[in-house]
């Protein structure tokens, strides 16, 4: 046991009320749209009305003449002074056809909603008036909307210079070479040929994602001496800073990016580097005035948060006694246009394919992916990054195997869960630690499957249809450099600066940028435990590139894994220094392990009369650095980094119980139970909240939300009337149980949690509905799962039976 762990006091695991809440419940949060600078101008994007059209001309003269309008920019105006994307900082190390584009469309528009012009005005109402006066003459082009047809040789092209609509394709199994992959595929085929049971289905998941309640926004301020200060709704301010430097050719010392302290959710949507950021910075520099853009919900729904959208042709080979043998999946993702930095659309389905095998011990796998460019908004990251569709497909197919061999699906899963870790999956994903069986058994115990089966049988006799569904999920706990460098060309390590103040307070600085996950509180709990002080004496600053160490961003559940581990490492260094100097002052031979930091004091364990208050020793070292030990200087501030040698994971399992009305297809979720391995819990309230939110997001995606395009590529779902999010009345209460295994690779045993969590939800839900409909033999393979789909499946099944 490391001494950090030993000294971690009572604050770890405490259900502490959040430090963030007082300002947020009183309306004193400071979100992007609340920030105002003197002389600030308002920006508004004019966006394409067509999905695919050539821009013949743009006439902005009337708009410019409107009193209050300061500037109007079009693609032609900026093309020569702004570098096009891609730039290396936002370019993954994955081979793909990366489209070239400028922040405003130049020759063509490629999706409904693409920015065509930027209006800058003194008043946002005037900017809206001006938008009506920008006349764009378009020549319509054939629209490419179907990913399968987009890949046909004779398809028109979205990005003509690329010569193909296939932005990315990869075989994830069988090694790097085509020969190795072919050999592997042949081995997999042999297993399929010999298997007792083969399930082979096409699974579809529609276009949906995690739309945060706060849309995007940017506020840029420029002066010729200091350069650019940009406030951006972002999860990764340090990456945005580098991108702005490269694209606008501003010297690095002149760019500071600040993510507002309060952000109204991110969920991946605020992780890419967006073209709008470039334009607002450009306008502020050109006009030497602060310029702010606040995205409308309409723009947001047309541009970001669109994810999932995959077809997975999935096959499983299994033995009749319930051994899962091989998995074969040919995925096809609808990338949309792909013009967003860092992710380009396809990075999500790429990771979705990597994560496909989940927690099961396959002998072999053959996993391939193709990604097609279309005239839709680009896929942008959404919590459960890429693997919401692949996990739905796999978890559904496993139930279908169970039905075929007549085994309880929960039992089939249990028999095939990876029994001990570490383990490397057939797609070469490394699972570092945990105890899947313990998590699973904990779920089963809470769900009480035998009692449910009895209740189900009794209900069936009365003509009522209850069903139970299970699914589980291996999720990334942070993203190691080993994965993030190839995937996003960025490092994964965590970084934190811990600064002690002469009054015994602690300031922590982190370069990630949270949006509601409670980092101020959890970090304070970690620091308070290690220093034996009160969390209220800890202040956490995030997201300002001017004051924080480089951080890869609030992505992929990095806080509980990478960030707090860096904080713990920094605290440990400071404890070392404090105890070295204290031992010297007390004239004893001792080091950190001989001291305890507790209740505001640092106490020598060998003789508890030898002690000093935390504040006094800190003040002594910072303010009175005389009579120091040999070679020691004053001051107490440390920046530490954390990187695990290998990627780390967390694990969860879901159980859903539904009742289906077989006459209407309506279904009601009667119970939702989960079992979680989140490692050492820092604040169970916050972890509970992460799980609740993620599960309901998964349900909302699976049952309600859907981005809809008509045959012209017009977006029909650009408001909350049409893009329906789950309301409180639509979703159940959630029972959470924990079966945690401390992570052996982090200093406190914590795991990063929450990011991938929605992915097991659609499988559990749909499995429950199919279980309820087992007497009819209904097997659903498509989302969204709505009563009309259930009803149609029932009709079809009844028709077949007649």
């Amino acid at each position, binding site marked *: 046991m490391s001494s950090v762990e030993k000294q971690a006091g009572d604050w770890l695991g405490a259900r502490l*009320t*959040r430090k*963030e*809440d*007082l300002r*947020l*419940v*009183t*309306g*004193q*949060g*400071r*979100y992007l*749209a*609340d920030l105002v600078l003197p002389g600030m101008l308002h920006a508004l994007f004019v966006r394409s009305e067509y999905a695919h059209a050539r821009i013949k001309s743009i006439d902005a003269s009337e708009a410019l003449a409107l009193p209050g309008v300061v500037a109007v920019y079009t693609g032609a105006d900026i093309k020569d002074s702004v570098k096009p994307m891609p730039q290396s900082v936002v370019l993954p190390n994955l081979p793909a056809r990366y489209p070239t584009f400028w922040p405003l469309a130049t020759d063509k528009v490629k999706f409904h909603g693409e920015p065509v012009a930027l209006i800058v005005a003194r008043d946002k*109402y005037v900017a809206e008036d001006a938008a009506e006066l920008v006349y764009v003459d378009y020549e319509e082009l054939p629209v490419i909307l179907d990913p399968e047809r987009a890949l046909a040789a004779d398809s028109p092209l979205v990005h003509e210079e690329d010569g193909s609509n296939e932005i990315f394709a990869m075989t994830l199994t069988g090694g790097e070479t085509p020969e190795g992959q072919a050999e592997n595929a042949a081995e997999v085929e042999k297993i399929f040929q010999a298997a007792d049971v083969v399930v082979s289905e096409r699974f579809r998941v529609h276009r949906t994602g*995690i*739309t*945060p*309640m*706060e*849309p995007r926004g940017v506020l840029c301020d420029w002066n010729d001496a200091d350069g650019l200060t940009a406030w951006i709704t972002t999860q990764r301010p340090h990456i945005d800073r580098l991108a702005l430097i490269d694209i606008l050719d501003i010297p690095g010392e002149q760019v500071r990016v600040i993510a507002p302290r*309060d*952000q*109204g*959710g991110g*969920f991946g949507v605020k992780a890419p580097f967006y073209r709008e950021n470039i334009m607002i910075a450009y306008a502020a520099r050109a006009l030497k005035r602060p310029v702010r853009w606040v995205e*409308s*919900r*309409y723009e947001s729904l047309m541009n970001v948060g669109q994810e999932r959208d995959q077809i997975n042709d999935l096959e499983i080979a299994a033995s009749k006694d319930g051994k899962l043998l091989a998995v074969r999946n040919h995925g096809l993702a609808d990338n949309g246009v792909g013009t967003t930095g860092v992710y380009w659309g396809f990075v999500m389905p790429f990771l979705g394919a990597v994560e496909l095998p989940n927690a099961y011990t396959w002998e072999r796998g053959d996993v391939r992916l193709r990604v097609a460019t279309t005239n839709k908004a680009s896929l942008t990251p959404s919590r459960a990054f890429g693997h919401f569709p692949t996990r739905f497909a796999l978890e559904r197919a496993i139930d279908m195997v169970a039905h075929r061999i007549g085994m309880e699906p929960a039992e089939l899963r249990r028999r095939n869960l990876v029994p001990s870790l570490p383990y490397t999956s057939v797609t070469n994903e490394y699972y570092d630690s945990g105890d899947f069986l313990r998590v699973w058994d904990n779920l089963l115990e809470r769900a009480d499957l035998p009692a449910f089966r009895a209740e189900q049988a009794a209900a069936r006799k009365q003509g009522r249809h209850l069903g139970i569904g299970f699914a589980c999920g291996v999720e990334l706990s942070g993203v190691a450099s080993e994965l993030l460098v190839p995937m996003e060309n960025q490092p994964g390590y965590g970084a934190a600066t811990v600064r002690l103040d002469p009054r015994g307070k602690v300031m922590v600085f982190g370069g990630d940028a949270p*949006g*509601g*996950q*409670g980092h101020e509180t959890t970090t304070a709990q970690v620091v308070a435990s290690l220093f034996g002080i009160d969390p209220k004496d800890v202040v956490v600053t995030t997201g300002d590139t001017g004051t924080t160490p480089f951080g890869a961003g609030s992505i992929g559940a990095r806080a509980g894994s990478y960030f707090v581990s860096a904080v713990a490492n920094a605290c440990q260094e400071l404890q070392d220094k404090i105890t070295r100097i204290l031992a010297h002052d007390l004239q004893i031979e001792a080091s950190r392990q001989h001291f305890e930091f507790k209740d505001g004091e640092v106490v020598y364990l060998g003789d508890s009369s030898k002690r000093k208050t935390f504040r006094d020793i800190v003040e002594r070292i910072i303010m009175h650095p005389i009579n120091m030990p040999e070679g020691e200087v004053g001051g107490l501030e440390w920046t530490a980094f954390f990187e695990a040698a290998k990627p780390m994971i967390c694990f969860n399992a879901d159980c859903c119980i539904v009742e289906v009305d077989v006459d209407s297809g309506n279904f009601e979720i009667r119970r939702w139970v989960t079992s979680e391995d989140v490692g050492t819990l820092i604040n169970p*309230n*916050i972890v*509970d*909240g992460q*799980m*609740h*939110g*993620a*599960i*309901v*997001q998964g349900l909302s995606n699976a049952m309600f939300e859907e981005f809809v395009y008509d045959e012209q590529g017009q977006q029909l779902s650009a*408001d*909350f*009337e049409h893009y329906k*999010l789950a*309301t*409180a*009345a639509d*979703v159940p*209460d*959630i029972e959470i149980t924990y079966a945690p295994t401390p992570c052996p690779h982090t200093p406190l045993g914590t795991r990063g949690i929450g990011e991938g969590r929605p992915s097991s939800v659609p499988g559990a839900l749909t499995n429950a509905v199919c279980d309820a409909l087992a007497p009819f033999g209904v097997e659903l393979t498509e989302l969204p799962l709505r009563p009309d789909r259930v009803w149609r499946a029932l009709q079809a099944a009844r028709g077949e039976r007649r």
Partner: protein
Amino acid sequence: MKTISVTVNGSVFEEDVPERLLLVDFLRDRLALTGTHVGCTHEGVCGACTVHLDGEAVKSCMMLAVQADGHAVTTVEGLARDDRLSALQEAFARHHGLQCGYCTPGILMNMTDFLTGNPDPSEDEIRHGLIGNLCRCTGYVHIVRAVKDAARVLRENTGGAR
């Protein structure tokens, strides 16, 4: 332009406003009461902009500032009295009823009104009462608990009557 007189959180404001100015923009941009948020494009669905007009919850993105002329508006900034949080505000913190906090002011305003009319609501009634407020972070579980607990506290404070 029209001159309006609106009482906001107890103070009277007399302002010249364009007829088309939305109440939410009047509150946020003119009075700098930025606790009232905007979550949808003035379609009245998300509820982030909810305030009280003469004590009743309304969506301030669906109203013009001129329509508030002569009325009393309360925003989230006016919920705490003499630096004491309301029972609902306290319950939201205690039960972790908020994550990013973007939806929270609107939910607090709506539920404050709701509890006045229904001091002892069931979970189902609370969930239906929340239909006009979207929250993306919490899954609503802790929100429902917070409202229920605030109702209990309020009932105890008023002697359990009603």
